[in-house]
């Protein structure tokens, strides 16, 4: 029971700002926090002791904010991270921006120098409020101790409502030690849901009924708004073919008969051909990202567009829709659908593409073929959550892993943050201990948050790490090969440390494999249900392997380069 609940009136005994902050976190349902202490935030760390909140000390503040991001994704409640002023706060920024770009609920608390020192270039003073303005949904500086309960309730409400996002709360040291007798917190009722726009629904249904070649793009908003069930019901009822963005993989099970795969730069050719040839595109909770559309003016050139999103600022930002349905996805989806099922000729065409461009795993070469390894791994178990880093391996995960739910795939879509995988897996495992969580890391990315191995070890967070080591910044190398005439510049990582020994040094068990025959055993070991805790499977792969297919930057999506082209 929290201190505040016990109080009846304003004559309650005074609490410090830090105690009030802890109470506010608890009142908002927080159980776990990722953070790192320091001077300006010491009073809050003092109040943390014995508070009942579980704090995970990461080994870099970026680890804390990225872990909080993943925690927020899988729980759909704000993940919480905290850090001290100055460098602690700036180290959080990448994770905050990551959450902003992918619409993830987060509350980030930063210590700040005392109010009287703000603006004097005091020790460890930075204007983190100013630094983060463009990458937060909202932010506060707590100027008075009496504001804490209301600001914090507001912070959580803003972070979690509508299109979610990160909220920063900057907490000056003097405010964190000031005493205050709080009045009982009045909880504002959440606003009534907006009614569905019936006129837009009717217009959309007319387009759906008239369309000869309708196609759905499932976007990240489906998972964010908890509309997966409504979306699946919609697809079953209408029989429309579906493609998905990176963030929506799993909205429809990967093996679903109507699913054509991911579209876009590294999408499946079937999906891209369907988009380029459809006459009606229904975009559900997506935002026409350039990695999805390729050259915008050539994207789905013959299609009318229905765009569904809760954020009115996404409508007509990049592509003007014929019908926009602004609001919560699930209730709108329940009212949408054509009068007739899609024409057999279109479905047959989609199926033909799907067959023609199905992934192949008969790659030549002696070494381990990462796409096949990933495909095999994701088919070994039904309960995998895969968090990945950024690069070629990230695209291979998206292409070749099977997902039954979008929350099984944690990927840095909008920001493309190398180093996301390990802390994200950590945050997801803390939030969902019953899941088997795998971090699929690149050798370059892994080194960006390698210090979090210490966090896994300290708390026994049972994350399984699959490190795909091509001794290369592979994705950059691939672009240099294809678009810079093979002029390789600063992509060689052949002097990587011995990753297996690195893991061992952190107390994490490891194995190294480099032959196809070792893959089965390696994966069994990696995913085993035992109590040996976190572990790392280090896989050496061909440095020159590329991700296919690929839409060259600035090209139309059907101009895909493949390994056969």
């Amino acid at each position, binding site marked *: 029971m929290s201190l505040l609940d016990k109080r009846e009136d304003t004559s309650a005994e005074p609490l410090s700002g830090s105690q009030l902050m802890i109470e506010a976190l608890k009142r908002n349902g927080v159980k776990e926090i990722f953070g790192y202490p320091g001077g300006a935030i010491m009073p809050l760390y003092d109040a943390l002791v014995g508070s009942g909140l579980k704090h995970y000390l990461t080994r870099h503040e970026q680890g804390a904010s990225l872990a909080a991001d993943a925690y927020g994704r899988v729980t759909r409640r704000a993940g919480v991270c905290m850090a001290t002023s100055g460098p602690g706060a700036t180290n959080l920024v990448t994770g905050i921006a990551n959450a902003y770009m992918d619409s993830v609920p987060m509350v980030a608390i930063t210590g700040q120098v005392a109010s009287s020192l703000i603006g004097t270039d005091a020790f460890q003073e930075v204007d983190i*409020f100013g630094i983060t*303005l*463009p990458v937060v949904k*909202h932010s506060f*500086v707590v100027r008075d101790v009496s504001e804490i309960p209301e600001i914090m309730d507001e912070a959580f409400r*803003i972070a979690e409502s509508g299109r979610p996002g990160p909220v920063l709360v900057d907490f000056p040291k003097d405010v964190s030690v000031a005493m205050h007798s709080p009045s009982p917190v009045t909880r504002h009722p959440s606003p009534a849901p907006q009614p569905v726009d019936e006129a837009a629904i009717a217009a959309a249904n007319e387009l759906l009924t008239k369309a000869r070649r309708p196609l759905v793009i499932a976007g990240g908003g489906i998972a964010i708004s908890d509309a997966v069930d409504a979306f699946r019901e919609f697809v079953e009822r209408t029989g429309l073919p579906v493609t998905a963005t990176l963030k929506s993989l799993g909205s429809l099970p990967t093996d679903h008969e109507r699913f054509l795969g991911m579209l876009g730069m590294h999408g499946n050719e079937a999906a891209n051909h369907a988009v380029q040839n459809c006459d009606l595109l229904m975009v559900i909770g997506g935002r026409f990202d350039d990695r999805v559309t390729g050259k915008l003016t050539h994207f789905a050139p013959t299609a009318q567009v229905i765009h569904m999103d809760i954020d*009115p*600022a996404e409508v*007509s*930002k990049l592509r003007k829709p014929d019908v926009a349905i602004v609001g919560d996805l699930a209730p709108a989806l329940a009212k949408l659908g054509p009068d007739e099922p899609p024409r057999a000729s279109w479905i047959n065409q989609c199926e033909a593409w799907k067959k023609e461009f199905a992934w192949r795993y008969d790659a030549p070469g002696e070494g381990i073929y990462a796409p096949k390894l990933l495909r095999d791994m994701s088919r070994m178990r039904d309960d995998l959550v895969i968090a990945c880093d950024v690069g070629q391996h990230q695209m291979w995960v998206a292409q070749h892993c099977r997902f039954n739910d979008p929350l099984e795939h944690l990927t840095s879509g909008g920001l493309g943050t190398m180093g996301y995988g390990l802390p994200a897996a950590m945050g997801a495992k803390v939030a969902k201990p019953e899941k088997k969580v795998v971090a699929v890391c690149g050798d370059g990315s892994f080194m960006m948050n390698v210090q979090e191995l210490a966090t896994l070890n300290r708390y026994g967070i049972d994350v399984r790490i699959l490190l795909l080591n091509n001794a290369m910044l592979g994705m950059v190398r691939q672009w240099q090969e294809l678009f810079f005439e093979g002029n390789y510049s600063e992509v060689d990582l052949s002097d990587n440390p011995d990753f297996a020994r690195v893991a061992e040094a952190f107390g994490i068990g490891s194995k190294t494999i480099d032959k196809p025959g070792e893959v089965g055993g390696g994966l069994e070991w990696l995913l085993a249900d035992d109590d040996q805790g976190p572990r790392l499977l280090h896989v050496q792969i061909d440095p020159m392997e590329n991700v296919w297919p690929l839409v060259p930057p600035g090209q139309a999506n059907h101009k895909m380069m493949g390994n056969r082209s």
Partner: protein
Amino acid sequence: MNTVSAVSNVTAGPRPDVHHLQLQLRAVEGAVVRVLGLVERRGFRLLACEAEEVRDGGQPLSLRVRSERSPELLKRQLERLHDVLQVELKHPGVRHHA
């Protein structure tokens, strides 16, 4: 539909890429910089900006901006900010020349 015949001639009438926005903000820390930052980041050049005296806890702010981008989209992006209470897009009222 407005037809602007003398786009390049500023004296002949308002330019179609210049827009006037009247905002009402919450009078709280950061509200004005948040708005100005967004306007520039979203591709609008700030031509004029006037923040009037705060009254009833509200901060009136008037902006003149220039961009090829859609002012309606800018309006929606501004409305998304938590401290923005209201945005009015004043149409330039293009004069028609005989």
